[in-house]
Each structure stands twice: as structure tokens, then as C-alpha cells.
């Protein structure tokens, strides 16, 4: 039995981390009877442990809510989940493409944050109806009136249009449900048109293979149909279609405006392209739905197993992760200092952190990660263009005629009192002010053009410390610009340590070289010989430190004949030395790689 499109509402919730999206989703499920309070697993929509722990959502999912509105009519509300961070903006945008409306959920004490705003703009650009909601109005620190005015200013609506709820107590949730029905437009698809359904997500299920989340735009998709995937030009039989209520419930058919899941026989996630359009084999000429950009990795980091024997395990773990995360890409990389590993491409900083943590936690790997880098574009003397993702691959300046780096448009929202420190930080990071906009007299939105390389490492921590934790930050790709960049190499006892090489702006090269040499002097234990630590641009040394030689490494006597004890003591010390990497003749502690790359918070 198909629901008429006039009774369907498809919507997402856009919210900052910790602003209560999952709690609100839970409350909506409860109110509509989709789950009883008793079997409610807290924060039902977030499935992965890591997501729950960090309070963020990565994978989009669609949940169907059956709701009888005050007009006594039954509606189907499809809640399409979105990730909260712009690292995953490609996931956000495809989730939004499956919706006609979005709830913009804002913490009534904290106000709107940069990431929320970035996603809200995405939704507005996609033509979605925005339903503004303030959450946590039960908290003593809540300032619903001021925040409502702020939201109204951003969205161009009246402060009274802002719904005030407490997802925790349930206050205001009834009003929100009504507004979903009244404010969000019904989908417009026609049942008689040829089928066009959007694949807005896919994930790998160990039992069922690849599961697609689909939104039918026109026509209908039925059990037993053959689905034709326009972009990949593949046909797959529909093994099962259904909706999540939130328990997977098979249905015979998905009509226009409906969302649900689709299972075919496909076992490899690579065979399904998110953003693809599904139709029937007799309509292969339909206009494809606007798809999505291929997720493009922006940040790269070398991941090396601490124990060289774990290389294959690392490869397997990456392959398993890719089953659910098609955006993950990597190529093998070998480092003289760190051995064999992979240069892994990430969508952004959060993505990098999550992947690294999952590898260590779920796959029990002990990893050394090199400093994140970005992809530089290099024009060689012969005119060919190459992309450089790893500092070691940068050709000598004599062999290239152009070197450019990726920029981003960074958006920072901060209390007005911290505008000065933020601007100072951005200037240090080679940022170029693009705009300044007072959201309220107390809160400023600053936009900058800034090299991605300047924000991939510890930028957010420093921004937070300069604004006492109040600033929020997000960014979008903003093209490439030529820049005066150099590679700084770090040499230990005369040999370069590839893991410490970095590409940086010439103006920052000395600072990097000096601070790295100083840090390494502290981190590298004294050896049996003097160790020179040098920073160099090409053959020119720009900084030098020395680790003095150990002079004495011997105990006075054998503890009155207790040779066993002495053996145990030295064996223990030898165990400690195993956590060292031999770089040429120099022993470097494993932690030094991580510690040396850590930037001081005071920058």
C-alpha cells in the first residue's frame, strides 16, 4: 500500500556535535511509536561505538516515522540522518538531496556553530525548507530569546518561528512534529513517470552484502524488479526493499517521495556508486538525478605499523574499513625511518582521526602516523603536471616551474571579544580575510581564504585555546594557488629522516626547522656517539642541534655475584630499546615520531 506523496515528509536534522540531534531523534521515534521507551537503545541512530563515544554520526540512515497529525490524517515522516561535520560534506549534501526540509537544531545556550551554519547553507542552497529549533531550553544556561533572535537573523525569519524544545524532557517535541507536517513541502514526484531513485548512501552488511539507502523521486521500485544503475551501467535484481521503522521492514514497493533500503546481490561496495540514479532497464535514457562529487581526499598521512610484521594486517584493516567508507584511499609507501606503510587520503581532519582511531581500536594495530600533508600541484619543467602528496615526492626546485597548494575557505564563529586573537592566528597561518559578519552584537562570523596545509595540523586546538573553547570552525575547498613553498628536511647524523620532511612556506621554514631540531634534541636519547640534528632546505642547513654522546653505560659491579639480577635488568632495558627505530646508526624512540610532530599549543 503506497502512501500518497501529499502525506510524506522527508527531512534531516542539521546540528552541531553535542547539540542533541541523537536525543531529539530518539524522542521523535518514541513519540511516533516507532520504538517504545523500554526497548529504546539510547541514541538509536548512531550505530557505531565510536560514533556514540564522540557524539557524532558518520553514516546517513533513513528512518520512517508514522505520525497522526492534529488534522487526524496519517503522515509518513522520513528522518534522513546526516553527519555533523563538513569533512563529510559530500555525505551531508547527498542526504539533503533526499529531503525537502531540514530541522536546524541549535543548542539554546551555545548558539549556532560554524559547522551547523555551513551545513545550513548547504541545505538552503539545495532549496530545502528550514525548520529552526532551539534545544536544551531546560538548561539553566539557556538563552532562548537571544538565540532565537540570532537564528532569525541568519535565516531571515521571525524569532517566533523558532521552535523551542527540550529533547531531554520532551517539551516542544509535539509542536515540532506538527511543524514538520505544516512547514515542509510534500515531495513532488509522479507515480506514472519512469522510475528515478537516488542512491544516497550505501553500507556493507556482513550478512546481506551491500545495502543501499534510496529515495524514490519518480515512479516506483518494487520487489522483484530489475534495477538499472545509470552511472555504473549495471543491472541488479531487487532482492529486498524495505523501510527502517527503525527495524528493517520489507515492503512490496517504494513509491514517489518514499525512502528506504534496497538489497541486491552485490557484495562489493565499489560496485555501487553513491549518488547514482536507479531506473528500470527499459528506461535507461532517463535524465540522471543530480549526483554528487566524488569524495576527494584532501588530507594525507603516512600510516606505519609500529611492528613491521603488522603491514599486512594494516592493509586488511584498511580494506575492511573501505567496505563502509568508499572515500578512504591509500597507496603503499615506504619510509627509511618507519619501514613499510601506506599513504592514506582522508576527507579531512576528523575523518583522519576517526580512521586512525578505528584502526587502532577495532583492529588492534599500533600505528605511527606522519604529520598530515596536503596534495600539491607541481608543473614540471617539461610542462607535465603532477600531484605531490608526500614531501619526499617533491621534485627539486630546478625541475619544476610551478608549485601550488590547495586553499580552503574557512569559516570561524567566535565571541566578538576574541576577534583580535583569531585574526592574529589567521594571519600567522597565511589567511586572507574574506568577510566579517556580526551574527549578533556578541558573535562574529569570520571567513578566510587560507592554505589547507596551515589548518591540517593542530589548528583547531590552537583556535580553541585562543578563544577559551568558544570558537567553532569549518572549511570548504577553495581551489589552488601558487605559493613560495620549500621542503624542509631533517637530518640525523647526516642522513635525512623522510618521516620528518615537510613542505612549508619559505617564511615558516626556519621556524619549522628550528623547532623540529630543538624538539628532537629533547626526544632523542644520547647515543654512544654525538648525533647532529640538522634542518635543511636542499643542501643548505638552516638549523642545527647536537645530542651529546653518552659517556658511561656500565654498572660498577655485578651485585655480589648476582648475575641473574643483572641479566634481568639489562634484558629489561633491551626490551625498552626495541621500541626504538634505527634511523641509519641512530636509535630513535617510536614516540619521538609522534611527539616531534606535535605542535605546541602556544604556536
Amino acid at each position, binding site marked *: 500500500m503506497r502512501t500518497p506523496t501529499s502525506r510524506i515528509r522527508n527531512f534531516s536534522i542539521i546540528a552541531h556535535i553535542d547539540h542533541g540531534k541523537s536525543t531529539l531523534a530518539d524522542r521523535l521515534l518514541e513519540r511516533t511509536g516507532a520504538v517504545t521507551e523500554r526497548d529504546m537503545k539510547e541514541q538509536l541512530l548512531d550505530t557505531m561505538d565510536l560514533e556514540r563515544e564522540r557524539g557524532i554520526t558518520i553514516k546517513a540512515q533513513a528512518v520512517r516515522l508514522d505520525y497522526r497529525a492534529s488534522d487526524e490524517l496519517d503522515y509518513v515522516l522520513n528522518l534522513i540522518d546526516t553527519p555533523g561535520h563538513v569533512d563529510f560534506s559530500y555525505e551531508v549534501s547527498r542526504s539533503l538531496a533526499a529531503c525537502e526540509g531540514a530541522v536546524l537544531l541549535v543548542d539554546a545556550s551555545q548558539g549556532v556553530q560554524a559547522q551547523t551554519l555551513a551545513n545550513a547553507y548547504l541545505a538552503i542552497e539545495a532549496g530545502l525548507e528550514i525548520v529552526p529549533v532551539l534545544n536544551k531550553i531546560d538548561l539553566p544556561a539557556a538563552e532562548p530569546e537571544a538565540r532565537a533572535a540570532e537564528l532569525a537573523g541568519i535565516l531571515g525569519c521571525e524569532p517566533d518561528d523558532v521552535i523551542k524544545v527540550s529533547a531531554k524532557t520532551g517539551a516542544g517535541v509535539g509542536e515540532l512534529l506538527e511543524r514538520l507536517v505544516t512547514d515542509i513541502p510534500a515531495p513532488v514526484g509522479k507515480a506514472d513517470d519512469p522510475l528515478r531513485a537516488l542512491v544516497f548512501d550505501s553500507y556493507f552488511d556482513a550478512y546481506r552484502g551491500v545495502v543501499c539507502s534510496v529515495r524514490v523521486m519518480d515512479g516506483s521500485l518494487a520487489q522483484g524488479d530489475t534495477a538499472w544503475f545509470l552511472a555504473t551501467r549495471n543491472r541488479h535484481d531487487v532482492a529486498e526493499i524495505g523501510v527502517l521503522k527503525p527495524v528493517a521492514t520489507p515492503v512490496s514497493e517504494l513509491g514517489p517521495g518514499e525512502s528506504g533500503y534496497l538489497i541486491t546481490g552485490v557484495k562489493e561496495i565499489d560496485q555501487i556508486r553513491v549518488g547514482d540514479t536507479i531506473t528500470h532497464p527499459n528506461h535507461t535514457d532517463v535524465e540522471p538525478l543530480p549526483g554528487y562529487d566524488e569524495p576527494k581526499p584532501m588530507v594525507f598521512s603516512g600510516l606505519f605499523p609500529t611492528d613491521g610484521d603488522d603491514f599486512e594486517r594494516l592493509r586488511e584493516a584498511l580494506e575492511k574499513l573501505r567496505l563502509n567508507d568508499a572515500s578512504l584511499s591509500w597507496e603503499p609507501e615506504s619510509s627509511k625511518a618507519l619501514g613499510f606503510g601506506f599513504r592514506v587520503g582522508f576527507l579531512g581532519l576528523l575523518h583522519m582521526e576517526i580512521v586512525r582511531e578505528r584502526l587502532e581500536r577495532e583492529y588492534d594495530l599500533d600505528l605511527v602516523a606522519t604529520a598530515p600533508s596536503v596534495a600539491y600541484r607541481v608543473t614540471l619543467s617539461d610542462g607535465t603536471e603532477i600531484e605531490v602528496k608526500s614531501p619526499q615526492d617533491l621534485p627539486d626546485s630546478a625541475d619544476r616551474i610551478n608549485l601550488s597548494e590547495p586553499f580552503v575557505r574557512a569559516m570561524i564563529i567566535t565571541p566578538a571579544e576574541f576577534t583580535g586573537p583569531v585574526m592574529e592566528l589567521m594571519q600567522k597561518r597565511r589567511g586572507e580575510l574574506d568577510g566579517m559578519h556580526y551574527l549578533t552584537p556578541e558573535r562574529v562570523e569570520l571567513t578566510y581564504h587560507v592554505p589547507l596545509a596551515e589548518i591540517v595540523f593542530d589548528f583547531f586546538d590552537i583556535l580553541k585555546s585562543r578563544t577559551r573553547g568558544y570558537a567553532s570552525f569549518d572549511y570548504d575547498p577553495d581551489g589552488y594557488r601558487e605559493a613560495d613553498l620549500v621542503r624542509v628536511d631533517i637530518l640525523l647524523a647526516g642522513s635525512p629522516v623522510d618521516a620528518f620532511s615537510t613542505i612549508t612556506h619559505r617564511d615558516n621554514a626556519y621556524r619549522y626547522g628550528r623547532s623540529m631540531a630543538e624538539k628532537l634534541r629533547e626526544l632523542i636519547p644520547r647515543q*654512544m*656517539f654525538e648525533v647532529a640534528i640538522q634542518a635543511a632546505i636542499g643542501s643548505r642547513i638552516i638549523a642545527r642541534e647536537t645530542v651529546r654522546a*653518552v*659517556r*658511561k*653505560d*656500565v*654498572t*660498577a*659491579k*655485578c*651485585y*655480589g*655475584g*648476582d*648475575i*641473574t639480577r643483572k*641479566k634481568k635488568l*639489562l*634484558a629489561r*632495558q*633491551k626490551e625498552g*630499546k626495541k621500541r626504538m627505530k634505527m634511523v641509519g*646508526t641512530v636509535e630513535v624512540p617510536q614516540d619521538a615520531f609522534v611527539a616531534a610532530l606535535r605542535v605546541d599549543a602556544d604556536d
Partner: protein
Amino acid sequence: MRTTEAPDSPAVFDRAADRKSAYVHIPFCARVCPYCDFAVVGDRTDEMDRYVQAVVGEIGRDEPLAPLDAVFVGGGTPSLLPVGALARILAALAERHGIVDDPEITMEANPEDWTVSRGAGYLEEGLTRVSFGVQSTDPRVLLALGRRHGPREVGVAVASARRAGVPSVSVDLIFGHPVETEASWRRTLDEVVELEPDHVSTYALTVERGTPLSRWVAEGSPAPDPDVQAARWEQAVEILGRAGYIRYEVSNHARPGHHCRYNLGAWAGAEYAAYGLGAHGHRDGIRFRNVRSLDAYLDRIEAGESPRQGSEEVRGWEAEVERLFTGIRVAAGVNGGRAVEAFLDSEDGRRLAGLGVIGLVEGRLVVRQPLFTDAVARDVLGLLEMSS
């Protein structure tokens, strides 16, 4: 007959491997020094007789080894032994294992305990070698080390031991306490050389866990500086070398014919019996140790039980590696063998050879830079991971 062979000669060291010896531990001290982590008991010297009786009992119940080449009575403070006690212990050892002609019978002694009559008594009982716990002649260092003697007692003790006719006199020194200076260490060495002992041991002060010293350091007192200690070690080798003392082990220097036979045996992997609380022995491929507490030791012996607290088997490949592990402390170096070959062939061994830390001299593995002996020893232990 005492030989006049150089203490660092390979022949002397290789011969030591086959000699048998015994260690006897006398734990009593008038006062426990703050840096000491040996098995010692202060304030219970009234138990001395009972203890000597127990040691004699332990010896009597032991399996015979072979005639002993050397006996080392260490402590604690063995010079607290009343006259007659040493004779009882030696008699028990002779009865159980036999003692060779011309043995080395060493006793450790504190300078302040040594009197002419006492020395004569010990000599009568069989003593051939005394090792004085001098530590320093700098009053400030002696005070900091918690010693009960002053510089004056040192001279008196060494001279009276000489006069009494003790065949071999050794002096133990401790260097590198933060209150010591380069000049005061030089003075100590010069003054000791002037006393003309036959043997000098120079030990770097080590902060051992669980000692008052380690607590003081943890609370902020200055710790010995290893760089300074390295310089002091070199100073000692130089001054003693010029005075005719040959360094034959990391911390030991002797005139020809005056190396410590007992110690050389221990470094060569020889077998030695061990008696008394906290004593460590090595026999039949087993390293073993006795209980450390006085009460537990006495109770066990008097109940007719074994005082053993634990033991490890060290045989085959492990014994070979261990022989290299201890042997590299000795200047003569370690005679070739499977472990030596394997080590020279290992990645660590090649690296150390490349750095000039170790070398092969007439088929013997020699540590050319003794101050890195533990660095070499750690890598030698890596051989244990090889199946042999």
C-alpha cells in the same frame, strides 16, 4: 705460589674458568650505609655466633664441589667476625670441599675495625687477602657516604695489614658522589697509591632502588652525574696505571700477581659455592640464591631446611651467552666460541665493531671502550633470542 702474571693476561682469565671457589656472606654491619643494597643487617651483631654456627652447618650439609682455589668472605662487614670464626668457616669448607695449597682467602674489612692484633689473628686463621672498604680519603665524601671512618684510619689499617704480613691488600673506592670534586678524587687516588696496596677497586656510586640514597635523590638531592663519573673513571685508570696498577676489569686494578682469583672466576663463568643469607652461587649449570632475611635464614638452617630461595638453570647456549655476558667486563676479553662468533656476526655486533666499541684481538672479543660494557652486554643478551 703467587704468580707474577699480568692480571689482564688471557691465560690468567681462561684458567679461572676451571677453578672452584666459595663465597661466604657475613651480613652484619655496625651501621648500614645509605647507598648499600646488599643483604645486610645492622644492630644485630649479638647474633653473630649463632649466624656463624648456621653457616658452618650449611657448609657441612652441602654437596662436595672440589678443592677450593679461592674463598671470599664478603658482607656486610666481615671484619666484625670475632677471632676464631674465620677459622671455623674455613675448617668447614676444607672438610667439605678441600682447599688447594696456596689458596686465596679474602675477607672484606672496614678500616676502623682493623687492629694489629685482629689482623694477626685473621692471618693466623688462614687469611691471605684483605679488601678494605676505604671508599675515599676525602672526609666530605666519607661523611656523605655515611662511613664511620676518617682518612686517618685508612692509612693505619692498610699499614698494619702490611706490617702483619697479609700477602695481598686491596682497597675499594667509590667515586662520583656529587660532593666529590675532580681534585678530591685525584687526592684520594694519590693517597691510596702512596699506601701501596696490591689491588684497587674503583666503583662508580650507583643509586640503587630501595636505598636511602635513592629516596634522597627522589626528594631532590643531586644524583651522581654519569658524565662526571666517566671522567673520574678515566682519571682513575690513568693515575693507577701510571702507578703500576693494571686495569683487568671494568672496576678493578691490580699489580702483577694480585688479581682477585675469586672475582675472575665469577666473570669467567666458573662454579662457586655460596653460603650465608642472600648469597648467590653457581654450580652444575644452576644459579641459585639464599633467602635474604636473617630470621628466615637462621630458622631454615636450624630446622634442617635448605636456605635456597630460588634458582635458574643456565645451560647450553644460554650458558655460552652468559659467559660472554660476564666475560666482556674483563680486559683480557673472551676467548672465541659459538657465542662470540654469533655476536660478531649479528647486526648489533657489527654495529658495535663499526663504532669501535668492540674488537677482535688475537681471537678474543674485547670491549675496547669499557665504559660501554653494559651497552654491549644488552646486545649480547639479544643472542638468547637466537636458537643457537
